[in-house]
């Protein structure tokens, strides 16, 4: 008999592809329709704003919604997977085969991340189309109006077009999408850890959302709480414990700066990628610690 390897990327890939199929069968991609509606609605607000202001608003609404869908999707999809496998008895079939539990967890997480990644790319394509179309319409209208006026030099027209382009479709926006993906990956890893000991999907979803909200708020809210409590020792201790136990999701909001048009600092993007990998490794290890001896 051939010995079973300790770890097989092939087995992980098989479980991941099964997870992708499972999520597609749950009709998860239908939320893209809702996203497209939000983007179209944002693109048709009739406000007395300059083209640059309007583009900025379309971008912020679209990317804000993209962020919301990404982390929410990561939580819900991950929370459903292990309980669903238990209900369908697929889990028993898988674990009775020579599949390590770490491979199972990695495969599940990998599958969710593939679906989140594909969804983000699809949302970005919808959003980029909208921004690109609006931008070219705005630029054409502005150039025509300025040329018809006759008072503006080529330099003035170029300046005005530059102002619109600054808020339009730029390749750096893809980094904002990457930031959403990194955040969703950490959220999925935390959720998979919670689902290893949770009793139901509902519990996992609620606790994961709470963890996400606290993880997003603790940096922002700690100064407020400390101020309100008169810098009390108890609140300081509580804040410290929360900061140690719960991931800091606010760091991943660096997408906001990118969407606003700030220059991307590549070393910081790589460092955020490294931090995400560390989160994934630790939370997978934590999940494994709980899952490894779990009796089904």
């Amino acid at each position, binding site marked *: 008999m051939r010995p079973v390897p300790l770890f097989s990327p092939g087995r992980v890939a098989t479980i991941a592809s099964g997870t992708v199929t499972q999520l597609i069968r749950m009709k998860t991609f239908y939320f893209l329709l809702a996203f497209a509606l939000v983007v179209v609605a944002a693109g048709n607000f009739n406000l007395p704003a300059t083209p640059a202001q309007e583009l900025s608003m379309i971008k912020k609404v679209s990317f804000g919604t993209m962020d919301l869908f990404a982390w929410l999707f990561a939580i819900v999809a991950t929370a459903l997977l292990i309980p669903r496998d238990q209900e369908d008895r697929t889990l028993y079939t898988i674990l009775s085969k020579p599949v390590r539990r770490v491979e199972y967890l990695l495969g599940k997480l990998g599958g969710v991340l593939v679906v989140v990644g594909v969804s983000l790319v699809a949302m970005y394509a919808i959003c980029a189309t909208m921004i690109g179309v609006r931008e070219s319409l705005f630029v054409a209208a502005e150039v025509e109006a300025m040329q018809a006026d006759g008072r503006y030099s080529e330099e003035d027209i170029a300046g005005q077009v530059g102002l619109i382009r600054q808020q339009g479709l730029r390749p750096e926006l893809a980094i904002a999408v990457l930031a959403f993906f990194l955040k969703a990956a950490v959220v999925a890893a935390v959720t998979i850890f919670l689902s290893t000991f949770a009793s139901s999907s509902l519990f996992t979803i609620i606790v994961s959302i709470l963890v*996400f909200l606290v993880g997003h708020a603790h*940096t922002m809210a700690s100064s407020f709480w400390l101020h309100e409590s008169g810098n009390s020792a108890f609140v300081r201790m509580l804040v410290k414990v929360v900061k140690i136990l719960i991931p*800091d999701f606010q760091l991943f909001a660096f997408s906001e700066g990118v969407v606003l048009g*700030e220059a991307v*600092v590549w070393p910081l993007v790589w460092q*955020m990628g490294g931090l995400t990998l560390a989160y994934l490794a630790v939370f997978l290890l934590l999940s494994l610690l709980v899952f490894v001896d779990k009796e089904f």
Partner: protein
Amino acid sequence: MKRLFQRLPRTVPVLALLAAFGLARGPIEEGLRARLVAANLLVPPPAQSAFEQMRQSVLMATLGGLRPLAATYLSLEAFDHFSTKSWDDLRRSYEIVTSLEPRDETHWVAVVWHLGINATANMEIDGRLPAFERERRFKEYAFQAIDFAERGIAQLPESAAIRLQLVEVYREKLKDDCAASRVYGDTIGLPGAPGFVRRFHGYYMARCPGREKEAYAYLTALYREGKSQRKPTLIKEIQDLEKKLGIPVPQRIPEADPDRPRPNQAPRRSSNVLPGGIVVP
């Protein structure tokens, strides 16, 4: 060892690992945060005052990582206040919006435009208020707009758009030519600043009492730069200054007065006559 590990409740290693990771990542994340804030990629937490002004829903959205969406929602709400001319509510909305997204230039430009131009214009014509009150509020809104603009410039020192909106308040509403000239001067050379700001800096300097000589030197220097700068307004301003300062004729610029009557020029239409001869009373 293995047996001990198996006997330990799983909570112990889980909590230990979680705590160890939390302690290890703390300083790394603090350093990363500082670098992201310095690179303007991460927005620092909103000011204490902004937290106090936020309604519960907006506060929750902000804390929950939906800061851009909360800011957009409040901008739309501010537009609603603009439609109903609720200027104080509009100012309150923008106090929060600008705290949530201090590095978004469009919010600063919009609030300066709303308060400095729209609210002041409304005070000029609002017949429901006594004249004294209208005048008082007119100044109040104009100064609030200036305050917002200065805060915006402190956040975005390179912003030409905020300065151009501010200068409109000084120029059109407060009729403060000295301040207008100063702001135009500050705008020169900023990224995205239009070419006309150099000339406008001089035009408004010429109208600022006591700075006529300086304005004359500045505008003639622009004139000497060449044809691209020799716009009719520049020539007119220089000629007015030449007369005002008593510049000897040989030193004056050779151009004819752009406002002189020309033989083949069509007679000027009165300002209250529209094309087609329609008279506006």
